[in-house]
């Protein structure tokens, strides 16, 4: 499924190391993220805080977002 538009980051389900690593990359609560490219089953390209970040699909699945409507 493709997630278009933006999403507000809500919660993450994962171990401590990943939480910190993601938080440092800018994936924090309330941060706006936008999926720029997602071609399953490959990795996902995400825009967060003005940077393009590539996430493995497994990690990306653990980031929970809620839609912000069409940006």
């Amino acid at each position, binding site marked *: 499924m493709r997630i278009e538009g933006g999403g507000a980051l809500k919660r993450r389900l994962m171990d401590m190391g990943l939480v910190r690593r993601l938080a*440092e990359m800018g994936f924090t609560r309330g941060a706006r993220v936008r999926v720029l490219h997602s071609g399953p089953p490959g990795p996902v390209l995400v825009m967060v805080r*003005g940077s393009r970040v590539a996430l493995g699909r497994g990690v990306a699945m653990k980031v929970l977002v809620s839609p912000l409507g069409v940006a």
Partner: protein
Amino acid sequence: MKIEVALIGNPNMGKSLIFNNLTGGRAHVGNWPGKIVEKKTGRCTHKGVEMEIVDLPGTYSLTANSIDELIARNYIVEEKPDVVIDVVEASNLERNLYITLQLLELEANIVIALNKWDVAQDLGYEIDLKELSNLLGVPVVPTVAIARKGMEELKDAVSEAAGAKGKKKMPSVSYGGKIDELVSRMARVLMMDEELSGVYPVRWLAVKILEGDGEVLRLIEKSPVRQDVLRIASEARDVLEEDPEAVLAERRYSIISEILKKVMRGARPLTLSDLLDKALLSRRLRIPIFLALWWALFRFTYDVSALFSDLIDMLFSWLGGLASTQIDNPQLASLVADGIFGGLGGVLVFLPPIFFLFFGLSILEDSGYLARAAFVMDRVMYKIGLHGRSFIPMLIGFGCNVPAVMATRTIDRDEDRILTILTNPLMSCSARLPIYILIGSAVLGSYASTPCTCLGSLSQL
């Protein structure tokens, strides 16, 4: 006066360019002790101040996530350079200032080089330099490293900052009520361990302990105050109701957002980079583009270098011929002609392909395509048990395995890195062609040409 200056910043922000501009390109390249990470140092003299400049590895953060980050962090904490130049990309402040906040916490004496200043202006950003400098409490110098702009001003700011070292009050990062209170309490406890507080900034230690930083937790293992510190840390987990590491990162980003609201205006339009990403990563085009680019790279390497290889070959056969006609003693003639010139020639013909392969790879890297290639190849590499990031070292392995092994340092998990290093020698590097020919002709005699061509084309295409 002699001062020590460290350069730090995110990767691809022009840090190396600034290093070259400051030192005039004269660098001493070595290794960090016990690590496979390159250490570059250089010197420059500015208005009577002698500066010893160390180029730290490019990092996004100063946690202990990878060797690069750890090296950069340990250097700043333990060597305490007089000034740290933080190279920040002007058009991407939000991400770049994260490391700046961590440097402030380390109580480093920072000068910010706001690089790619021209790009930010072209994109329509307006940045209030004075306000930014005020809010962060550090000098900010706009630079355009590629055009050598702002370098004199940067040197001025560095020598001024070095003079002011220890005199001005260090700005501190405030995380707000509860966290600040916990941090100060823990810092007071840590102060009592003089061995630790003599070397490390205690507030930084406290923050890192709250974040559960493995390296720092090891540091306090033998400390007499360990029990008290860990008690406060576990208390923090209860009080904050959430993982402290996530909360602290969140706070840092919200501090950055607050600062940016005050100093920056201008929106981000869809850049050329975004458009290119759409094409390079689209499902139908990414594999053809990928294959076409690699084919072009190897074609370029082979075609351009063939000319130079032929020239080198001709030169050495001419020299060999000259030697065998000029020297009377047949043994000596054979030694010089076949041994010295023949041997040198046999090795040197492989210099052009290696040189051009690296030339091509560095162009691809600077264009940003290599990062995309890792993205495209992630799935495939995963299938054979490697990491998406293993792809670039594997590819460099076609040229030479030594830099390929060095390139594995960007892979942050030890297991992935070792696996990539161990499988890398299986990539057929260009210098193996003569070995194939030697063994091929010894074993297969006159039938050797076909298998050798196949093996050779695998490594050369």
